């Protein structure tokens, strides 16, 4: 059954996976090669530009995760999960099959980014104090993609009722946040929550930090 689900998912998403892989392959190459001609005379400026390009790696990971997760569950949601409920497997096992097949689909994107990073940094005449991080960048991109895929997958696999509850909880939180801001302007619940999510050991902490393919 695992293979069958993988085949179905591949048929549904192959064009998306290929498009995302091309983008992942091109990103490091474009980011390095666009500014490399000027780097010989102004390497600090090149590194600054590269730092700005680093913003696109987590964005690409987020877009890839969202597209693949939604693509995986598109048919099930359209059919109100009837197909899944008819299968002689438990819900949890079915979700696991979907998840593991999704992991297979994100692998080409990570591999493409890794190869792109290797191509981009190959043959650069860098000063001795500068280091390149194609492997670490690919690993970080892979982890970020895995994490964000987990988020998007959990959201996309949830029932309409669960999503409704989640949206109501979020709305309630925003109302409480506004009320607290009005009563005590120095307390910003939204900011505190976002900070907790984005800093260690928050779930989004892996997205922060340095996204530098070339650095000191």
């Amino acid at each position, binding site marked *: 059954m695992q293979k069958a689900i993988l085949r179905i998912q591949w048929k549904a998403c192959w064009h998306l996976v290929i498009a995302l892989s091309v983008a992942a392959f091109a990103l490091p190459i474009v980011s390095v090669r666009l500014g490399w001609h000027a780097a010989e005379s102004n390497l*600090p400026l090149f590194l600054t530009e590269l730092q700005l390009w680093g913003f696109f790696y987590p964005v690409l990971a987020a877009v890839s995760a969202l597209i693949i997760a939604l693509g995986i569950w598109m048919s099930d949601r359209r059919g109100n999960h009837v197909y899944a409920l008819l299968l002689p497997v438990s819900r949890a096992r079915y979700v696991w099959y979907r998840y593991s097949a999704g992991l297979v689909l994100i692998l080409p994107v990570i591999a493409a980014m890794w190869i792109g990073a290797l191509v981009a940094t190959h043959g650069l005449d860098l000063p001795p104090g500068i*280091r390149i991080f194609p492997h670490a960048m690919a690993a970080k991109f892979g982890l970020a993609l895995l994490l964000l895929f987990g988020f998007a*997958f959990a959201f996309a696999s*949830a029932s309409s009722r669960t999503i409704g509850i989640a949206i109501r909880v979020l709305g309630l939180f925003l109302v409480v946040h506004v009320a607290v801001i009005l009563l005590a302007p120095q307390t910003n619940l939204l900011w505190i929550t976002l900070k907790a999510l984005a800093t260690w050991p928050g*779930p989004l902490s*892996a997205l922060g930090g340095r996204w*530098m393919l070339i*650095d000191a």
Partner: protein
Amino acid sequence: MRNRIILIAAALFCSLAITATAQQANAWHDSTVRLQARARLLEDSLMTGDSAATEVARRGDLVIAASPRQQSIAVPALDSFAATRQRWFGSAMPSPSGFRIAVQVDGGGRRWDGGTPLGNAAVGVAAQPIGSIILAGLPDSANAVRRLRSSSAADVAATLIDQYASLMLASDTVLTTWLENPPAFSVMMKDRRHRAMYLFVTGTGAMERDCANGDVASCSYALDLEHAPAARTGSIYSPDLRTDLLYYALDLGGAGAWTRLRNATGPAMPAKLAAAAQMPIDSLLARWRTSLLVLRPAKAVLGGESALVALAWSVVLLLTALGASRWA
């Protein structure tokens, strides 16, 4: 007997006359000192446009005066200044006559030097002076070096130390020539070593590359401490990096480093730096290079902790998905 009385009377008269002359001379001297002090105050008030500044505090050979509204910020500024000065320059003065730095404090409004982002026409309201602070290093005689600057109240301490450091660097011609155009002290000290590390490792010239690779002679050429041989031409490190080396040497040398730098025999810059750091110039350059290279990011792109956290949260999200998918 009569002659003796006349003699005694004459002697008494003469002694009184001498006393009177001495008193007059002392009075003249006091008067001259008072006049000099008043002239300096007048000059300061003309410089700052503020005649209400009065002495607020003294710390050793430093005196600070401020207009009434600025007195509350003058004392902390003096303390901050005194601590920073002691740390980097000891008790040295930019000139034997002392120094005087006058700061026109403004309300912190918009300030510009000439043009604006919208063109040459001035737009907005200029910062209005609201008082002044005058810092003097004693003896503060007539030949003391002087500076006048404008600053917001929050930046007074930084302005004072910037001007003092600038006066100190300008007091040595060899140093001035070598540093060319050093950055302001407060700007320099803000994340100084991190910025220096990036400037060091991103040098693309041949000598800079050799220096980063560990060739101390190339460091000497790249830092313009020695003239490179004709065969070894190429770009050299910026004044920012040279200034970092100077402060690194002062830091390494500890107490009295600046005095040793000033008093070093021989006009060459390497001798001054070596005297400040109390070690041979090659050792100083090697230590400086190592100190910069160790500042490179240790974690680089991905840390082990972050990786573990990401994996752990992925498992949590998977378990959430397994539990949240109750469609019917």
